[in-house]
């Protein structure tokens, strides 16, 4: 049996909104350490990996491992009903065929309860090896979102080039080309505005902007984003959630012959 209370329902809403266009159905894998999800998009180009640690909930209780098969379009519609100051309790019984969501507002007398029917989702689970990335870039997530959106003007593909002390995003198409350069800034008072570049060796890789724009929707979830790149390895885009709740990671296979 699962019972978990999330202080802010909006957190789950933002996660689902960022993922729903990539993933149609997926399993929430629940055990005593938390709730995890891994799913590829239907084209098998990107992979979404979510971890919500038990510590981020209060209370959290999960007696035994269960996989809750969820249709994301349905869940997204229900999460739209989350008010800004609602907390959220999710429940699933032994052998349950529904996931229950209860929204409670701290300052009103309204309680909303939704039951979503569970599905049998046939999920492949991929093993993601630990990687020592050549470049790791931390930047404001809003900045990342804007770069992806701006460069989409010119092309469907962006080349990310990390060199010493600078990261360059380049897109080139039929009507012209665009490039945006981001440089590290050491002393910033707001943590989220920080830009850092850790470089083992220079890398230059091409990725689909369509997918990056999808990932960038998670900018509402975290003020910072971390991009990790190495040759011949998928890009990892990580949004770390506040209060040690966990992370939402996206992996994206590179495009070849385009960098």
């Amino acid at each position: 049996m699962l019972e978990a209370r999330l202080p802010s329902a909006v957190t789950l809403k933002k996660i689902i909104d960022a993922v729903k266009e990539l993933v149609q159905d997926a399993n929430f894998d629940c055990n005593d350490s938390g709730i995890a999800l891994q799913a590829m998009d239907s084209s098998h180009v990107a992979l979404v990996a979510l971890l919500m640690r038990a510590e981020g909930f209060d209370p959290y209780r999960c007696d035994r491992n269960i996989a809750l098969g969820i249709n994301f379009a349905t869940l997204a519609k229900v999460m739209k009903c989350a008010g800004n100051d609602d907390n959220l309790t999710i429940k699933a019984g032994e052998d349950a065929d529904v996931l229950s969501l209860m929204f409670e507002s701290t300052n009103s007398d309204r309680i909303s309860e939704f039951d979503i029917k569970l599905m049998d989702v046939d999920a492949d689970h991929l093993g993601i090896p630990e990687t020592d990335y050549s470049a790791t870039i931390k930047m404001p997530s809003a900045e990342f979102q804007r770069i992806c959106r701006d460069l989409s003007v010119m092309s469907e593909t962006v080349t990310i080039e990390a060199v010493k002390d600078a990261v360059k995003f380049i897109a080139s198409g039929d009507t012209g080309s665009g490039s945006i350069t981001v440089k590290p800034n050491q002393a910033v008072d707001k943590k989220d505005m920080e830009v850092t570049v850790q470089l083992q060796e220079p890398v230059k890789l091409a990725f689909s902007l369509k997918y990056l724009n999808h990932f960038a929707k998670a900018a509402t979830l975290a003020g910072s984003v971390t991009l990790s790149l190495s040759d011949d390895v998928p890009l990892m885009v990580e949004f770390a959630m506040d209060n040690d709740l966990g992370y939402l990671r996206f992996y994206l296979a590179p495009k070849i012959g385009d960098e």
Partner: protein
Amino acid sequence: YPRKSVKKPPREETIHVALVQAGDKFLLTQRPKRGLLAGLWEFPNRGELVDAQTAVDAVGQILDVGDSAGLKLESLGTVVHLFSHIRQTMEVYHVVISTGLDPVDTADACTAVLDAPAQWVAKDGLDQEAVSTGMKKAFALLGKASKKTKAAGSAAPARASKRAKVASDPKQKSISSFFKRE
């Protein structure tokens, strides 16, 4: 120095083609009487399918076999076919229907659901039908695949749907070529 705007490249188009097999027969539908390849017969296909599961569901609905989970859908890969102004990528799937079917009834059902004439044609009879060249290429994949399948034994996955769709951009690598199934 300034330049004229460039000539348009052929339009890109991706369609999903289902080779629906019952016994030794395959389902064919007929193209509209007008337009490109008018009146030719083809394997059921749709451009707007978002993923393979949708295809299975559509086939299940056509054949009224109830729970579409019973259908085996196997991805055979992609074929590219060039028209004068279209570069068409066909993603080809193979579905084997094991339920006892009345070919006449199901063809009628297909006509109603697909809004186009439909018929079941034996594999050997496909040559006699007016089938377009592109569709023949798509069908050829089945021969190749069946050899592979035989080599690999009959370990075809019963629920292969989640693995079927491949990216249509040839430059785009698949994530599963990097991360392995556990």
